[in-house]
């Protein structure tokens, strides 16, 4: 693990030279790391019951709710983050859509009492009010993310693969900044 503390360097190189960090990074009160590898599915259906039947499990009903690794993102949309290697039935012929998007996104984990501040640096939602166990799609500045509050101070962030480098470094910049807050 790389111990960098508040001395995380501000980003100064060109966008082309940014690389995705591999190991966790510690800041003051916050730790940024990669989430473990997951199977990801985008699940769609007009009628959740049909999808329940295909998957053999009950999907969360309300937007923002999660259950057993599946978050309800929209009235007809669920996002599954399941153990690596999980495969879901496709429900051929039924009015459902099950699409494997395991490779589409990467997961980051922000944890610690400072994690909320790092996320709030670029996410316009009032995340303090996102209850533990809820998830939502939103943005971090101009980049779309899915935020999943796994515990009071633990946030899982999903981001499409090619935006991950930028997001990683935007998080680092926010971690750097919060460490240097307003020396009096």
């Amino acid at each position: 693990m790389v111990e960098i503390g508040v001395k995380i360097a501000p980003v100064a190189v060109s966008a082309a030279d940014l690389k995705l960090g591999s190991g966790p990074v510690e800041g003051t009160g916050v730790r940024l790391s990669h989430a473990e590898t997951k199977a990801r599915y985008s699940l769609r259906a007009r009628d959740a019951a049909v999808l329940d039947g295909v998957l053999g499990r009950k999907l969360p009903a309300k937007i923002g709710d999660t259950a057993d690794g599946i978050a309800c993102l929209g009235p007809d949309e669920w996002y599954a983050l399941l153990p690596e290697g999980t495969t879901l039935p496709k429900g051929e012929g039924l009015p459902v859509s099950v699409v494997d998007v395991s490779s589409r996104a990467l997961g980051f984990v922000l944890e610690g009492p400072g994690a909320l501040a790092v996320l709030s640096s670029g996410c316009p939602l009032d995340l303090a009010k996102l209850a533990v166990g809820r998830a939502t799609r939103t943005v971090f500045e101009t980049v779309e993310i899915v935020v999943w509050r796994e515990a009071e101070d633990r946030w899982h962030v999903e981001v499409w693969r090619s935006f991950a480098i930028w997001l990683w470094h935007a998080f680092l910049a926010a971690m750097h900044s919060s460490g240097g807050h307003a020396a009096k």
Partner: protein
Amino acid sequence: MLLIHCPYCEEARPEVEFVYGGEAHIARPLDPSTYSDAEWEEFLYIRSNPRGRHHERWRHTHGCGRFFNAVRDTVTDVFETTYKAGEPRK
């Protein structure tokens, strides 16, 4: 940055999650071939552009993904209401 109440998420969310979709309740004709050039022009291009109550579409693109309708005052930018796609004009 506007705060927009999404009728699907049932909460107010920041404008940057949304994409504006232009005037609402302009339905594509079921059979465009029956439209005259003038009617087709009206469907494509003529917009009410009112000063005041405006029925408009938004998509909660970076949220639940749904299109919905809104009534907004174009002078104050204040939303009067938002409602789900398919519901009658308010």
